């Protein structure tokens, strides 16, 4: 999937990164720019970039176990009204949809600290799906879609 080394490809609709949180800034810029080009306003573009940041943060944490030598790619596949982002990695499968939805009242009562990233992704994106790697496909793919209304 991923050719080359850290901080590489950034052509058009794809950006590839190493598993380092320092890459999040670059990913957000890439998503924000493309979301605006697609037609989302500044507020929506910021939120889409935030959702992708959260997905990539989870990926680096849970699929890569903070291993900076691992790499992943983020692609954008725009159609007429759907802005689709795919995050492809070869780490341990981590399906965010299997994480139980957080009740924020309970969350605040318990003064909990983590697990908000998935909550943000759910709040921002219109469609979320996950394809874990299998015998035929070596990559996990998280698909996030936002509909332009």
């Amino acid at each position, binding site marked *: 999937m991923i050719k080359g080394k850290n901080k590489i490809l950034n052509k058009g609709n794809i950006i590839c990164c190493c598993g380092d*949180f320092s890459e999040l800034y670059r990913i957000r810029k890439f998503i924000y720019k493309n979301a605006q080009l697609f037609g989302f306003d500044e507020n929506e573009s910021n939120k889409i970039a935030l959702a992708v940041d959260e997905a990539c943060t989870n990926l680096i944490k849970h699929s890569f176990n903070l291993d900076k030598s691992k790499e992943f790619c983020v692609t954008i596949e725009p159609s007429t009204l759907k802005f689709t982002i795919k995050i492809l990695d070869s780490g341990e499968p981590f399906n965010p949809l299997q994480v139980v939805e957080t009740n924020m009242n309970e969350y605040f009562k318990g003064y909990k600290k983590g697990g908000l990233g998935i909550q943000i992704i759910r709040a*921002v994106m219109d469609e979320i799906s996950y394809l874990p790697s299998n015998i035929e496909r070596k990559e996990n793919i998280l698909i996030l879609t936002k509909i332009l209304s």
Partner: protein
Amino acid sequence: MIGDNKFSIQHKEVEQVDCLYLRGYLDAHTAPVLESAITDIIGKGQNKILVNFSELDYISSAGLGVFMAFIEDVRDSGGDIKLADMKPKVFSVFDLLGFPVLFDIEKEEKTAIEKFSVKDSATRFKIKK
């Protein structure tokens, strides 16, 4: 000033309140810098903390998690972490998850600092268990 070129914090004391001025982008990469700054303040026995967001351009859940990590202990000791002067795009992230219920978020730093001198000013933000 502490932090890197993407995120930095200035710290000063105003009327016995520790004020942190955030600048740049607060995400999983930079959140440990904020965590360390708050840990230092609490380590000195201080519990009145004001965080000024006027120069902050971005926050993710990693940043929200830092405030969640400290708020209970700070309030239990009679203090508070008050937040002020957020840009709308930063406030919208707090708002997205309902954080204004738990945190005292003021438009202006001055108002937030004044509220530290009001007894039990954080009471209405405490969540009943």
